[in-house]
């Protein structure tokens, strides 16, 4: 940050860099929202239920933090490219996954959702199950119990999980190198910010890319600070 501070202004006025950051922010935000929407029910299930093969589901959720992310990228290509898995079918109905925003979102969502799920699961486990049972005995439906008893107590944890997922998605490189080296965004082909930095390092070296690295760090840091500030005062 200190080394790149002088060049931050220059980086922040570079159109290609800003386009990369914009695309990355959209990808990361979509991943965070999807993680919350899909991850919260998962987290509730893991926190409150005992079922067959629960350990298997637990392990699958933890895969993204166990394996190299390039491997996850390869898995996604094998599942969705035009040659393999669901790819031919999806392409037949006009949906392309590889090197698209959709593909990037799928990749980073899978890789980052673990954080959201685990944070939410821990928060739910801290609530005494008797509180839910009491609500149910008083006539609440499961949905009403969740939305009026559980959710008010865990929404901050969900928000924390979401920002962690978002941050992880912004930082993703390995899977994106395979799945979405660049994406079509706003009428142009654009590198995700992490790939932009990597390509810049290849072509310009340390001295040339430090400005953009510092700028990206500043943007992400500012986002975090604003988010935490809002969360604390809501």
């Amino acid at each position, binding site marked *: 940050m200190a080394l790149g501070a002088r060049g931050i202004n220059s980086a922040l006025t570079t*159109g*290609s860099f800003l386009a990369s950051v914009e695309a990355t922010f959209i990808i990361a935000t979509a991943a965070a929202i999807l993680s919350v929407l899909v991850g919260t029910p998962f987290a509730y299930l893991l926190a409150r239920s005992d079922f067959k093969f629960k350990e298997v589901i637990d392990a699958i959720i933890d895969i993204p933090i166990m394996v190299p992310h390039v491997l996850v990228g390869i898995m996604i290509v094998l599942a969705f490219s*035009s040659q393999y898995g669901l790819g031919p079918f999806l392409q037949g109905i006009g949906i392309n996954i590889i090197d698209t925003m959709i593909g990037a979102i799928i990749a980073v969502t899978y890789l980052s959702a673990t954080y959201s799920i685990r944070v939410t699961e821990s928060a739910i486990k801290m609530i005494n199950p008797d509180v839910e049972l009491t609500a149910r005995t008083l006539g609440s439906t499961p949905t009403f119990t969740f939305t009026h008893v559980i959710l008010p107590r865990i929404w901050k944890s969900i928000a924390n999980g979401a920002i962690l997922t978002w941050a992880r998605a912004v930082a993703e490189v390995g899977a994106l190198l395979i799945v979405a080296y660049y994406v079509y965004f706003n009428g142009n082909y654009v590198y995700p910010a992490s790939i932009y930095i990597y390509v810049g390092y290849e072509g310009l070296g340390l001295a040339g890319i430090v400005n953009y690295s510092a700028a990206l760090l500043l943007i992400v840091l500012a986002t975090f600070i604003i988010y935490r500030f809002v969360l604390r005062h809501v």
Partner: protein
Amino acid sequence: MKVEKHGRSTMAYAVIIIGILIGAAIGFGLAYSAYVPQINSNNSKITALNAEIAALNAEIDSLNSSVNSLNSELSLQNSLVTLASNSPFVVGAAGTLKYAFGSVLTTFKGLYPHITVAPPLFEGSGLVAQAENATKQFSLEAAADTTAMPSVLFPNLANYEIAFGQTQMVIIVNLESSAGLKLYNMWKGVQGLSAMSTKWNQTWQQMFTLIALNSSTKVGISDPFTDPSGYQAAGMIRLAGLAFFGNMSELYDAIYDNPSKYYMASTETTLVTLMQTQHLDFITSSYMSNAIPQTGNSTQTGLAYITLPNFVNLGVLSELSYYHQANFSLSPSQLQPTGPGPSENFTINPVIYTVTIPIPSTNAAAAALFIQTLFSQTCQSILEQNGITPISPGIVYGSYTSIPSLIKSLTTPVNATYSTLFPTGS
């Protein structure tokens, strides 16, 4: 009377003695004259033999000198081997050297089993140079053009590079695409035509029309700003435009001004992997050095490569001035996706591989031994098998005095003929 008798006896003796002497002289003379030729002949033979002995002595001296030289070289080599065994030997090289250097490293490991060879990095020449600049991790570095290392490493991290091999641009075709198969068949047909004939020119024109001007075909290229083959492919396309269409822009603009026409990767070796998933028909950023191993058995891989005319393939040193017509400037903003950085000027030279031992080399001794191995007969054959024409002796750009003594005899300083291959100010 007694005196007379005595006198007559003395005279007789004298006559006899004189007669004997004369007879002896005559006999000696006769014998001498009979044997002089033989003696002369023998003398000549003796002289000749002496000369031969002198020559043999000189040869022995020379051989002794060679033996001494070899002994000192062997001693140097042995001390280098000992030194080289103390730390890992790390190679950073252009991606297209992956196959040739892989085999050379296998030979090297066989020759020097006590030297630990770390996993090499084969990436774009630009990335390898930048990695060395940032981390100083390599023992030896090699690039696929003559400018990558001087522009990034000279003068503090390296002060010479040795040109050791030359290759040429080719086009890899996807035989599983109809356009790729069509191009390949056209290329096979053009091989039987007389070069520069009307039919030959027309066929090449049709081929480049299929590659560049056909809107349904897709081309794989590597990033010109991170990989030499990227800008060399652009140069090749410009030369093809000049040669077959009368202008450099027609083919070049048709590809590079149309982001949906191409797929760009950071290195050309990854493009082959992506050929199927990205529906690429052709890869123009290819050298023969990676096309040969990557296309392999066409029936199995579904890939093949086509060679190009000498005046566009960047593979002939004598065509240097023709190639330079295609020099161009490019800004990252002119390509998609757009990366960071300023506009650059690209010089279209023949494709030359260079190698250097960085100043902070992590194992300079092993690097010198590796270069010596590279110039061995076995490894020169390996280079040829991988589509690289060896340059021997290696041509040195930069500080010739910095070349290690072990490999100096394998190299020669750059001369006027080759100086234009290297950055200006050599």
